[in-house]
């Protein structure tokens, strides 16, 4: 029998049992839908994280009191001593360390004439911060050595702040008040965009020394640095750890009471999350396809039993075993593939909805679609083979006699 005829005949059969076919497809729809939806979320997460990595700078080593990724018992963190400017100077002396930028942070309101921005991140740092943390200046200039030495009240604005305070005028050389203190705008930063809903452009950068003078110096310092040129990252991290342990008098055998963060930490944390997500997804998909597949097999067995007489007739008028087997197999594959297509549409819908309604840039990938199609196809084939071959093996005489 030609394939086109087989397909037509399968469609006719499934169409004549609409409700049954729809219910049978449901398991496949859910399985493939979950697959596509979760994969599109993971794709969104990947994009968000890639953006995050890019925005921080890829070869940064950041020494801080708390690790970037905090897990397990965080009780111990509270008793940690602050990291100081002197620690930063000691780190800078290491051969394996290149650029160093100590930085401190607070949140203050920023105002200009009538306008104000609440709780903006104020960062006090040195000129090296621009390179290490991957900032670029759109207009004007960054903080200079001179600004730091003279404790000048110079401020570099992130795009959000600039946009809020200076709607119609050029902010350069204008005065702004940060936490009540007057600063002159010397530069504007290039836009960095959003990460998971929080803007990276809602900040003001000021000289380290000015920050300490105006906002106090009883804060833990973050030391951002880069490895010296040609120096492997591990070596730099290890050197920093050793010097910090000595300076903070950590006894031998005790764990570090500070954190040396790198992109690797973020990456491995990210891999853990997505790894778990992928496993959960695989579980759901495998389970629902199994359940769906069993449903398909059950319905196909019922269908074979119901149509025993039809099979007998078909055989009497010349159908071979293969003609009958392929007819039923095509029916089950048709069923699961249709379910797969509906599932893909549904899953894509969920992905696009998430993209629309949340900051996660979810995206339906061709791989997800291909995988869903493959899953649907394989399920139809796997669970259709037994009923189909049973139909093909029916004895025509007994089948014709079946009531």
């Amino acid at each position, binding site marked *: *029998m*030609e394939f086109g*005829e087989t397909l037509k005949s399968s469609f*006719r*059969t499934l169409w*004549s049992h609409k409700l049954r076919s729809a219910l049978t497809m449901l398991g496949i729809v859910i399985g493939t839908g979950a697959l596509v939806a979760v994969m599109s979320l993971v794709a969104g997460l990947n994009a968000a994280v890639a953006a995050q990595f890019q925005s921080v700078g890829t070869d940064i080593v950041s020494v801080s009191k708390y690790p970037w990724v905090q897990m397990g018992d965080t009780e111990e963190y509270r008793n940690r001593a602050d990291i100081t400017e002197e620690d930063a100077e000691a780190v800078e002396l290491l051969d394996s360390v290149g650029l160093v930028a100590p930085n401190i942070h607070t949140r203050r309101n920023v105002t200009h004439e009538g306008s104000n921005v609440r709780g903006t991140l104020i960062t006090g740092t040195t000129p090296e911060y621009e390179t290490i943390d991957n900032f670029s200046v759109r207009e004007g200039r960054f903080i200079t050595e001179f600004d730091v030495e003279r404790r000048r009240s110079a401020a570099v604005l992130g795009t959000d702040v600039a946009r809020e305070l200076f709607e119609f005028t050029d902010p350069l050389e204008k005065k702004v008040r940060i936490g009540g203190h007057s600063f002159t705008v010397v530069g504007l930063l290039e836009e960095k965009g959003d990460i998971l809903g929080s803007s990276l452009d809602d900040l003001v950068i000021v000289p380290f020394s000015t920050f300490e003078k105006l906002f106090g110096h009883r804060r833990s310092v973050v030391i951002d640095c880069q490895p010296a040129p040609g120096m492997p990252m591990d070596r730099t991290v290890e050197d920093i750890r050793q010097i910090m342990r000595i300076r903070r008098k950590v006894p031998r055998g005790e764990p570090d009471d500070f954190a040396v963060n790198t992109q690797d930490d973020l990456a491995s944390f990210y891999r853990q999350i997505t790894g778990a997500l992928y496993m959960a997804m695989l579980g759901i998909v495998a389970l629902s396809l199994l359940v769906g597949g069993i449903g398909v097999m059950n319905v196909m067995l019922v269908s074979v039993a119901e149509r025993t*007489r*039809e099979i*007998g*007739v*078909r*055989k*009497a*008028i*010349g*159908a*071979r*075993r*293969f*003609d009958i087997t392929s007819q039923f197999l095509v029916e089950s594959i048709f069923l699961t593939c249709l379910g797969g297509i509906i599932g893909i549409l549904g899953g894509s819908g969920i992905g696009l909805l998430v993209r629309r309604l949340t900051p996660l840039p979810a995206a339906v990938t061709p791989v997800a679609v291909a995988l869903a199609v493959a899953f649907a196809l394989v399920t139809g084939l796997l669970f259709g083979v037994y009923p189909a071959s049973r139909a093909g093996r029916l004895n*025509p*005489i007994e089948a*014709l006699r079946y009531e």
Partner: protein
Amino acid sequence: MLIKLHEISKIYTVGAEEVPAVRSISLSVPEREYLAIMGPSGSGKSTLMNIIGCLDTPSSGSYVLKEREVSRLDDDELAEIRSSEIGFVFQTFNLLPRMTTFQNVELPLIYGHAPRAERADRVWQVLDAVGLRERANHRPNELSGGQRQRVAIARALINGPSIILADEPTGNLDSNTGEEIMQVFGKLNRAGNTIILVTHEQYIAEHAKRIVKLRDGMVASDSAS
């Protein structure tokens, strides 16, 4: 000789017992024959028909159809023979309910791998032969019993078979309609088709030119009608 059965036996095993349904039947059927096989139930006529129709193979003996030994073929080989040499007409019509008249009649051509272009012509030709051209797009449940049986006859004719095998073709029809159907068979035989009719009704069997009566799995009589 179109059909040569030589000492055909068929033994069924029921539990531990062996039940012979057909015992050592020998029978020859020339081309253009119109033969009725008669006998009470249990006489072996269904079994004999299944063997002649290549739905089943004999336990022993030889069956030569158009000079080919067909008693030892496997399932798919038998299906090929059925497709090209045998046209079945059943008591209960056995049309596929979801298909139209046209599609039912076309089906054996599809299984016989007839090229698409030739199929439609052939279907119209046999529908004309049984007078059902206007009913081509009706489904079986929209047809009368007699019309359904004529669709079944058209389906049996479509591949140009050597034998038309009709199993109680009038059993589900009233006597007038049954008579009409027998007229169709008569016409087909005069046009050169070989027809084997299985029935237990004497008046139906009398339409045939030759009557073979079975009893207890053996030929009891074989005579001209």
